[in-house]
Structures are given as C-alpha cells and as structure tokens.
C-alpha cells in the first residue's frame, strides 16, 4: 500500500475551507470527533471525508463524517445535527465485499465541477456499511478516498468466489 501521511488538524482545516464549512458549531464538532478518533483508533489517522449535498435553494448541508487509518474506518452519522454523535469503528482492510458507485456530471478522469455528484456505497463482510455522498469539489475528495481505501480492500473470500 502506498505511504499515506498522518492526518493533522491543519490538513482538516484546509479541507473544511474547501468545503466552505463556516458554522463554528460544525467546525468545533469536527475537531471534537477528530480528537475522539485519534484516541479511539489503534492506528494513526490518515484520511477524512465529510458527506455533503445541496438543497434546491442552493443551501449546502453536511451529513456524515468518516476518519480513516490504513486498516480502520470510524463513522459518525449526522455529525453536525445529532445531539450526541455516536462513533462506530470497524476494520475494513480486505473486508469489503460489495461496492456501488453512482455519478452525475462527474468524470473520474477529470476534476469535479460545481454540479458534480458522486454517491459511493460499500458494505463489509462484517455487515458494516458506508454510504458516501459528495457534491461539487468534494467529489474529488471522495474519489481519492475510494482510490486509497475502498477499491484496494475488496476482499477475496467465500463471498467473492476468489479464494
């Protein structure tokens, strides 16, 4: 596996800026989850993804947050709207048995545009599932998450028929 850099707060801040996340309450929540994830994960964190979408009036909504390490993923659903966000962690390396990808106005070989949309879903043999949605430039981040963490972890095993 390629070497992945350790995830630090300034990198996340840069990502939040690109996402145009402005509400202090959301940024504080991301920081809290990042700190929790660092303590929870047995490995060093290397990646983050926040799902976003846009309503018909153009208002952006943030939905779920994931933190990745080489072998683990931590998921916090509805991270900004839950009163008490719940973090769930699983091992996903060589454990993914199903992936679904849907794209609209998005070409995997090009940079995302403002109206690009990408939806990726996977589930692991442990029944853990992740449902990622990205809008606009965030599609490129999701593509990179897909390349780094998801695609390479499709498992060979009893369910795949490739032992």
């Amino acid at each position, binding site marked *: 596996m390629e070497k992945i850099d350790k995830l630090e707060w300034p990198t996340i801040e840069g990502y939040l800026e690109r996402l145009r996340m402005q509400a202090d309450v959301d940024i504080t929540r991301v920081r809290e989850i990042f700190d929790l994830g660092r303590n929870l994960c047995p490995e060093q964190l290397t990646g983050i993804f926040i799902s976003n*979408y846009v309503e018909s009036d153009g208002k952006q*909504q943030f*939905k779920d947050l994931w933190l990745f390490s080489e072998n683990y993923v931590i998921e916090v659903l*509805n991270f900004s*709207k839950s009163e008490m966000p719940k973090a769930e962690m699983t091992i996903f390396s060589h454990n993914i048995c199903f992936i679904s990808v849907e794209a609209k106005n998005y070409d995997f070989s090009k940079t995302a545009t403002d109206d690009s949309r990408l939806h990726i*879903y996977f589930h692991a043999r442990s*029944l853990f599932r992740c*449902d990622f*949605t990205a809008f606009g430039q965030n599609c490129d981040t999701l593509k990179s998450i897909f390349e780094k963490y998801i695609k390479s972890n499709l498992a060979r095993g009893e369910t795949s028929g490739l032992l």
Partner: protein
Amino acid sequence: MDKPSNPEDYIEWWNKRSDVKIDKAAEGQYTYVSTFVKYNFENSRGWKELIHQLHNYDAEYQRRYGYDLLMKRPEDIKLDIKEWGSFLSKVWRKNVVNNKNWDKEEIQPDGGWVTPLNWFERINDIVRTRVVVKYFDGVGLLLDKMCDHFRNYECECIPDWEAREEGYYAAHLNLVRDYELLFGLETKKKSIRVEIQVTTQMKDVIGALTHKYYAEKRMRLELPEEKWQWDYNCDEFAPNYIGHIVHYVEGAIMAIRDRGQVNGKNR
C-alpha cells in the same frame, strides 16, 4: 398465510417478497431523516417561538382561573426521536397486526403497504414530544392555541382526538412540513409530521404505569374471544377501566373547579 408474529419475523418475510429491503441501509436512512427533521424542527422559528408563547398561555390561564396550565417549564419540553425498534414495531402493526385484509386474496392493507419508500410520510411520530397540563380543560385550550400559533409558520396543523373503548384518551397535534432530504444522489421533498401530544398530569401518571401493559397488548396478533368488559380477571380489565375512571374523575374535578369559580373561590 401465517402472520409474522413479531417485527423480526416480519422483516424476514418482507425482505423475501420486496425489492425495497428493510436492512442496515434503511436503518441508516431512518437515523438520518429522523435526526434531520428533529434538528430542523427544533431550530425552526415556530418551535422556538412556541416555547416563548407557552409562558404567555400559562400566565393567561393563571390570571383567568388561578391555576397553572403547565406541569413543566416550557424550556424543559424536549423533542424525541422514535427508536428504530419501536418504529419497526409500528410498521409491523400497521402492515400485519391491524391489517384486516391479511386473510383475503389481496393481502395489502387498506391505504397500501407501509414501506421504506413511504414510511416517513405514513408514520406520524418519528419525532414527537409530550406537553403535560394540570387540568382537563388545558388539553383543548392548548391544542387550539398551538394550532393558531403554528399556522403562522407554514405548518399544516392536524389535531387528532382519540377516545378508545379500551380507556385510552389522547390529544395530538400533528405538524406537517416539507423537508428536503437526500436519497442517493438526489434530494426529494417529503411531507413529514412532528407530533405533539397534550395530556393531563393524571393521565401522564397512569400512562406511565400502564405503558408496559399496552406495549405488550399491541404485540398480540389475535384478540381474545370473550369481551374484556366481562372478564374481570383478564389483563385488560383493570388498566382499561382505570383509563375510563381517570377521564371521568378529571371531568368531575373540572365541574367542581368551575363551580368554585362561579362562587368566587379559587384554590
């Protein structure tokens, strides 16, 4: 065909016959939608302003009758999300237990199946709260005032008065609004209800005591043949009549209180 006898069997039965599965993905979607609706509703102007208005209603009732209207500070009234397990149990009851067509050729219940495609619109109380008033008359008064209030905030208000043979009395206000929600790649607008139950202090206490009994009763597939009114030993007899008696006593208390008002005596 045998009825699935509990929510777990129902999920298995449903997933064999439908492409719209009840699975972890459906649970994730439920968590997202219920959290989104709760967050948006409790941050809406209508709800925030209601908390303020409840103080006014309370003060107005105090001035008029010399008693408190509410049993709690309005700030302590919180919205709750129905748990996934209770939600599925309600879906099972609507599709199976209360389905009068189950033994017919076309087993679909009247009004159609409740499915993951429509259940956010069909189940009333995925987000709900309860407001407890002191006296019987507070129920109607508060329901009317809240209806008037929410009509100013682009909410459809549907009051619902329940009075069942089993001694269950309840008043609900359903507040319907459109919420734009993400499904896959697209957003869709769904009309979803938030339910405010208004009850009295006495019914609230009795409700807490008999809740376990009613929850168990709702899980039964078949009703006993003998009428519960004639079987004083059956599980229904005491709680059902307590429900009726409490309702009657509360009405009688009102009559006494009103007579006191006429005679110029408060408290």
